[in-house]
């Protein structure tokens, strides 16, 4: 059973945003809006600042200038952002289902149940195994499953297709399509093509 979660109409506003690391500006003058139900594809060469931009949007790094604003957010609602970085946050000695149950408890059980989420990402048979037995691609799927157990409107994904096979790639596209259809928005940094409606592209190589 897929969860049809309707998110409130949020939009992500970047206002004259400058971001960077260590005092060095990597990207500046970003002015755009990501409305609900759409996605933004980040492209650019290595070092162009895709990861830094995603972390800035997530609030993990302060912007060097300008502002990031999530408009239309209900003050009562919890954190609105799912961030999926390069690392999977998967601990080898914990079980697959146990890991997902942990994130459900910490982030809130507003999405799929643990079993359903594992089914969705194709890890249902590995539920009782220790996560250390999973391959790199399977661990990536487990990281993606985390996005399913808690419903948050904003998805910030940094190279989500890393280590995924073709089937996993298709899974990601399906997950993104469902997320956007439910009114969420996503910013995805990737070198690969994503077959998805409602995606705009931002090329950071041109801005640098």
């Amino acid at each position, binding site marked *: 059973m897929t969860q049809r979660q309707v998110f409130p109409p949020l939009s992500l506003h970047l206002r004259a945003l400058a971001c960077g690391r260590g005092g*060095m500006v990597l990207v500046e003058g970003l002015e755009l809006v990501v409305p609900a139900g759409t996605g933004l594809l980040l492209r650019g060469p290595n070092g162009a600042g895709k990861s830094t931009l995603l972390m800035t949007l997530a*609030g993990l790094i*302060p*912007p060097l*200038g300008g*502002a*990031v604003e999530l408009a239309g*957010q209900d003050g009562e609602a919890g954190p609105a952002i799912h961030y999926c970085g390069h690392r999977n946050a998967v601990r080898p000695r914990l079980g697959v289902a146990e890991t997902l149950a942990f994130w459900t408890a910490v982030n809130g059980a507003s999405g799929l149940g643990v079993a359903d989420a594992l089914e969705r990402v194709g890890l249902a048979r590995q539920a009782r195994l220790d996560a250390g037995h999973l391959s790199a691609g399977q661990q990536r799927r487990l990281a993606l499953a985390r996005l399913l157990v808690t419903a948050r409107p904003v998805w910030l994904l940094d190279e989500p297709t890393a280590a995924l096979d073709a089937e996993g790639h298709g899974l990601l596209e399906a997950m993104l399509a469902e997320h956007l259809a439910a009114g969420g928005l996503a910013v995805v940094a990737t070198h690969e093509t994503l077959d998805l409606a409602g995606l705009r592209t931002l090329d950071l190589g041109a801005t640098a």
Partner: protein
Amino acid sequence: MTIDTTPKMRWWERLAHPGQFVAWTTPLVWPLAGLTAVLFLLGLWFAFFNSPADYQMGDTVRIMYVHVPTAWLSQFVYATMAVSALGTLVWRHPMADVSMKAAAPLGAAFTAMALYTGSLWGRPTWGTFWEWDGRMTSTLVLLFIYLGIVALWRAFDDQLRAARIVAIFTLVGAVNIPIIKFSVDWWSTLHQPASVFRADGPTMPGSILVPLFIMFFAFTFLFLTLQLVAMQTEVRRRRVATLERKAARGEAA
């Protein structure tokens, strides 16, 4: 959710910009250095030629004129660092972390000086170069804190990231220093029933006070001069680092 940071505070803009800071303080350096030199000459003359020898310790008491001001300065410099730390964290003043970084090795040097002179002074009094008396022990722990902070600065490649982390550790230290002093005093009364030497005797005739105060001012101005120069050096050092990074990325300076 709005994440908005504008690093510069409008009303501090003059002082806040590093280039402005260097320009604004450069004319101050030589006059301060001169004043420091004059105070030292005056203070040392008074200390050696115009103040009494102690009836018990003889001429060695004159080392008090270096020991007491440096001991006081070791705490004053930490207070400066703590205020700078607040400036970094609470008021977000851009020069605050430069001030904090510049003060740390200076504070360590003054603390080491206080320990060294205290040790020299202690030799004729205690018979050894080191006694675990309350004050010296607290000063030793303070030296370790200073050295730890200096090491902490050097352990970060990104000095801007280091700034807030060192600031919070400095404040943790500031809260703990009174606790450490209290505990060390408690401990020393446990193990040493007889108090050792007192930096200030039972009476303080004016002839001791005058050189002491002059030396206080001399050392304080020495610190202020060195602090200014160190801050300017740090600003320049960061500018060089930025230029190097830009050159590495192939951009124009």
